[in-house]
């Protein structure tokens, strides 16, 4: 019965991915492609936050790592003439490096203190981007960031990146897919299971001789690597970055946390469900966008209070789908 359920889930997932891959075939409208690109962007970021949350920690600095990736990539391409395709990896590595450096001291801290320090770190980064004008051009930001280099493969038409076109869509789609895949595998591996057991029984885990710190650092570094990669995409998609970009500052980090929690922090599907629900809501409220945080805040509080496993569990809750899928017993 568990096998059947898993088969259905896998089938559903494959259909879902195929449908998403076919979107640019069905529409070329940049409006819709842009929305889906943004959803994919937040899925990639949510996966990282989800991974950190599975350790029992909440990072309020994820947006800062997006910014680190964005600035690294933009500067490498514009100042050193690197190809975007190399810069995007370098951006991820830079974010990972910074995560490694601050991870060592900071991941020792528990819950609240970790949130506070990551918050402070995020603010320090923002002030750094404003203050280090020689490097980052300061508050006005960097304009005219080039699009990703055209890919020319023999025998195939060139893959060109322009406005919100299919190439950008597939790029972000692939980034999100790879991010989810890696983080999912990590969470199912021995490392991931250990991290979750740490969250539940830290003392026992410690006495088992498991190197908690190493696993925590690894998870944090991986999460931040993908944040950096997403940041690089951001820079070359929007082609303008600044220290006040919402995706680089605390506000962005808070939104990213909202997407994951509303989607459901207990399941890998949570970081996917969250943006798919909340970003269309943001679009629907476009003319009332000052009220959007109120809506998000209210949804967040309602979910945490009445549906803490997140909206990912909504079908099961409403329609008893668990029985439909042949699962015995109650869902945990």
């Amino acid at each position, binding site marked *: 019965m568990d096998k059947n359920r898993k088969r259905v889930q896998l089938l559903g997932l494959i259909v879902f991915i195929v449908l998403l891959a076919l979107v640019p075939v069905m529409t070329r409208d940049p409006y819709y492609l842009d929305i889906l690109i943004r959803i994919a962007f937040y899925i990639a970021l949510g996966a990282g936050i989800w991974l950190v949350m599975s350790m029992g920690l*909440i990072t309020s600095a994820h947006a800062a790592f997006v910014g680190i990736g964005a600035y690294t990539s933009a500067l490498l391409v514009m100042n050193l003439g690197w190809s975007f395709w190399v810069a995007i990896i370098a951006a991820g590595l830079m974010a990972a490096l910074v995560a490694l450096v601050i991870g060592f001291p900071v991941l020792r801290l528990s*819950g609240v203190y970790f949130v506070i320090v990551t918050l402070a*770190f995020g603010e320090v980064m923002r002030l750094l981007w404003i203050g280090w004008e020689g490097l980052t051009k300061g508050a006005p930001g960097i304009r005219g960031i080039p699009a990703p280099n055209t890919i020319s493969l023999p025998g195939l038409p060139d893959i060109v990146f322009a406005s919100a076109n299919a190439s950008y869509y597939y790029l972000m789609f692939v980034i999100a897919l790879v991010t989810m895949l890696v983080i999912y595998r990590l969470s199912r591996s021995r490392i991931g299971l250990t991290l979750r057991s740490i969250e539940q029984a830290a003392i026992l885990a410690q006495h088992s001789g498991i190197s908690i710190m190493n696993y925590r650092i690894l998870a944090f570094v991986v999460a931040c690597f993908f944040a950096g990669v997403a940041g690089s995409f951001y820079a070359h998609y929007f082609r303008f970055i600044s220290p006040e970009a919402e995706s680089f500052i605390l506000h962005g980090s808070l939104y990213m946390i909202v997407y994951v929690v509303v989607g459901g922090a207990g399941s890998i599907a949570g970081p996917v469900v969250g943006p798919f629900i909340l970003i269309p809501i943001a679009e629907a409220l476009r003319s009332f966008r000052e*009220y959007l945080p*109120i809506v998000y805040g209210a949804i967040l509080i309602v979910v945490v209070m009445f549906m803490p496993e997140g909206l990912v569990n909504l079908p099961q809750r409403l329609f008893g789908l668990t029985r439909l899928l042949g699962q015995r017993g109650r869902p945990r």
Partner: protein
Amino acid sequence: MTLQLFVQVVLNALMLGLTLVLISLGLSIIFGIMHIVNFAHGEVYMLGAYGSWLFMDRLTLPGPTLVRYFEALVITIILIAALGWILERGFFRAFRGKILQAFIVSLGFILIFQAGALAIFGVSQKSSSSPFPGVIHIGGAVLSTERVAVILFCIAFIVALNLFIQKAKAGQAMRAVAQDTDSASLQGININGISSLCMVIGCGLAGLAGCLLGPVFYVDPYIGATPVVKAFAAIILGGMGSIPGTILGGLVIGFVESFGSTYLGAELGVMLIFIILILVLLIRPRGLLGHG
């Protein structure tokens, strides 16, 4: 560096430090005693600042300016304290002991309060008028009357709070709960009541600080973002669970911010505070005067 500049910087430091002490004491009571992680504490401060603008400038209350100032102060504190009560009773009580969930709930409130203030008051910065205009001269130094008034108010409230915690029964109950919730409960102390009281006092203090600073700085929906981090910095620097520690921490941060901003520039000044926070957490997590 002239004497005049130095005096200004010190005055500023005292004012920033003491108002931060108010906010931090509020946070210390909420977080240190009841372990409620309310990150929206800064937004409570922001609402207090709007209170001062609303009741001093937007509406016309009876009486001359000085009387209106006190009216605004009292009304704002009562409203903010009531908000604190609602937050505790309706939301945070359900998450007692579940720190991360409480934090996420407070995240929701940050979003709601910020956008709510934006929707109601608009994005343009406001400033409220002060009943203490001008300057006073003391021994050759020129001091802004408003800043001196704020400093005096802060000292008065800090002393009053200390007296309350030391002498009043409710205050002693709070200290008992801070030491050991279970023993306190066994002695018949109503934990729920203390929880509400802590939130009411804590938010009241933050609202008071906002109201006092309304005439000094501008007011907009986002002024609450940094004070909460500085307040945590003050509590952690001074030492968790220690009131003298929080006062010391707040003053140190105030001085760092004032001197840092004046001599290193605004960004570096704030950065310095964050760096101090990070360093304290890493090197000496129990702070200057904290217990274990």
